């Protein structure tokens, strides 16, 4: 299993500002992902965080809005840029186990934009 720590756990931000969310894993993992969960909804994949190269974004998500860094195999950040109230969501970091058979998730970052 993998233990994932996300920071911050929650934040309230002013519109127009940016927030960077950190994800730290207790072991080296190949694959890391970022998901968004809007209020009362399921999880939607934002992007795959690639170590040493640019993230791979899903349809509807762009790098300018959600820049992602992954400097090594245990750490990644997601920035939510130029925030609006529509960005109010829970953002979750996820990794796969070595066999790629199970996903582990952080507790999420609950973001409220006012």
């Amino acid at each position, binding site marked *: 299993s993998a233990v*994932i720590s996300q920071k911050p756990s929650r934040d309230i931000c002013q519109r127009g500002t940016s927030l960077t969310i950190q994800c730290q894993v207790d072991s080296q993992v*190949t*694959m890391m*992902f970022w998901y968004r969960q809007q209020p*009362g*909804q*399921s*999880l*939607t*994949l934002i992007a*795959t965080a690639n170590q040493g190269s640019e993230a791979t974004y899903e349809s509807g998500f762009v790098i300018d809005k959600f820049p992602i860094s992954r400097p090594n195999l245990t750490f990644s950040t997601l920035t939510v840029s130029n925030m609006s109230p529509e960005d109010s969501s829970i953002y*979750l970091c*996820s990794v*796969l186990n070595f066999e*790629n*058979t*199970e*996903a*582990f*998730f*952080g*507790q*999420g970052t609950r973001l409220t934009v006012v």
Partner: protein
Amino acid sequence: TQLLEQSPQFLSIQEGENLTVYCNSSSVFSSLQWYRQEPGEGPVLLVTVVTGGEVKKLKRLTFQFGDARKDSSLHITAAQPGDTGLYLCAPGSSNTGKLIFGQGTTLQVKP
């Protein structure tokens, strides 16, 4: 377009009742996973079903994979308040590792 349709979307029941939630698709999957997300937490894997017609039991939870590997069901016997949460299904992650979840079923079990 959602690959997987989950139903019902919301279910509120009394402790001790039985329930079934469904995960349906027109696509065939090599495997399917069920996750549960409790309030304030990330999703946690409950089970992976691989073989058509397969039935797996996890205490009071029974998971079934359809014969054609297009659908799955989760049956909970004698639900308890601790079963409260969001139940999500997703095709087993391929080489990409990406999980594309269904809309989820929110279950509330009242004491």
